[in-house]
């Protein structure tokens, strides 16, 4: 069952709506969808949100208003708005803006999920974000219609489970076991296993391993390790902020496997486009830790 948080405050004439819910993917979808969340806000302050690099691809199905991407992770592309969106793995931030209203369902898709749900390796979508119809065709609009017709998060999530489950059955979602294993090792170690170790474990040459890994995921093993490490660091940071406990950046750097605090800060500039402190100040008010994070 999804966790729900919902608040509706009526101030004068304008209702402030702020709902969110977490989708825990069922057994059928779990290899493909690592998490999902539903959100609906209205009457809140306009804001800008950084879509940070993470080890998951993104699928967003909007409900009431299209999603406005003010800046893609690929800076060559101009701003655009989308009813449904797919985003590939990336190592620079995308910028999402809204004018006080936003609503939709966001799913974190694994590389295996890219094969199973999108019918292509994650590598085909690296640094790309855009209209989900370009990736899944008519399913994008169909998902949105079905989700919009439901009245609760639980029902919307059930539609997602059903439709994506059907979709996954139609594709050959295999990844070479050596690459899948290297990805799991990076995930489980939060990006701290040396790339040379990963290559050695496959039994392949470093060069061959690198090209296989990159073609599948779109990221070099080293870039993937950076993304996993950064993902852990920023979630830890946010988690400490939400818990009100705070965290020393030097301690966080050590815990996340950075050489020192300066390296952590440099990585934030590169992947988030700002310092850790600025990111927290921008996002904190808004941030909701995933249930999985709270258990860590």
């Amino acid at each position: 069952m999804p966790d729900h948080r919902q608040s509706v405050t009526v101030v004068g004439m304008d209702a402030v709506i702020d709902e969110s819910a977490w989708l825990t993917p069922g057994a059928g979808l779990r290899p493909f969808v690592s998490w999902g969340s539903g959100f609906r806000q209205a009457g809140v302050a306009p804001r800008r949100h950084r879509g940070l690099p993470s080890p998951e691809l993104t699928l967003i199905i909007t409900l009431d208003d299209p999603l406005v991407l003010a800046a893609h992770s690929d800076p060559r592309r101009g701003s655009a708005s989308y009813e449904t969106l797919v985003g590939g793995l990336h190592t620079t931030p995308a910028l999402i803006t809204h004018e006080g209203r936003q609503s939709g369902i966001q799913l974190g898709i694994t590389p295996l999920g890219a094969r199973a749900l999108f019918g292509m390796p994650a590598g085909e979508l690296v640094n790309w974000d855009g209209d989900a119809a370009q990736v899944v065709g008519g399913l994008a609009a169909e998902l949105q219609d079905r989700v919009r017709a439901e009245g609760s998060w639980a029902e919307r999530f059930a539609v997602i489970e059903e439709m994506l489950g059907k979709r996954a059955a139609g594709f050959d979602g295999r990844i070479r076991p050596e690459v899948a294993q290297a990805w799991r090792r990076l995930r489980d170690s939060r990006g701290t296993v040396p790339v040379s170790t990963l290559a050695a474990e496959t039994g392949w040459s470093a060069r061959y391993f690198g090209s296989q890994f990159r073609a599948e995921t779109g990221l070099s093993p080293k870039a993937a390790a950076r993304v996993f490490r950064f993902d852990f660091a920023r979630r830890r940071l946010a988690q400490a902020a939400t818990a009100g406990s705070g965290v020393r950046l030097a301690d966080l750097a050590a815990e996340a496997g950075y050489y020192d605090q300066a390296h952590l800060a440099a990585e934030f500039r590169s992947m988030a486009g700002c310092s850790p402190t600025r990111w927290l100040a921008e996002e904190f008010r808004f941030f909701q830790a995933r249930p999985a994070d709270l258990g860590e």
Partner: protein
Amino acid sequence: MIGGMTQAPPPQVWPSFGAQDARGLIKFLVDAFGFEETVVYGDGDRVDHAELAWPLGGGVMLGSGPSNPGTFQAYVVCDDPDALFARAVENGAVVVSGLSDKDYGSRDFSVRDPEGNKWSFGTYRGHPR
């Protein structure tokens, strides 16, 4: 100019690419460069497959699809995709999509070479001009 009236030979290697706005891009390629539309299959904004011919010979294929700007691929006509697929994989090509029969009658696969360039192979020989 010699041989200006002869029929250009059908291409067996086609530059190909995905487009965010396929209809807009087709119009550009025709207006700006002088490509000629051979076929455009699709519905509304969506283009499933298009072939544009170059007047002197050869052509390009494109369709709506996720594609980063500036990335070209190649589609290569082949007679025995199964054997070629085995050979490509044997030599380290990375599979993007395995062998499959398309509804337009082609048997296709696509792979990446060690530098990340994408190659698609199939039995479809292009629309007759």
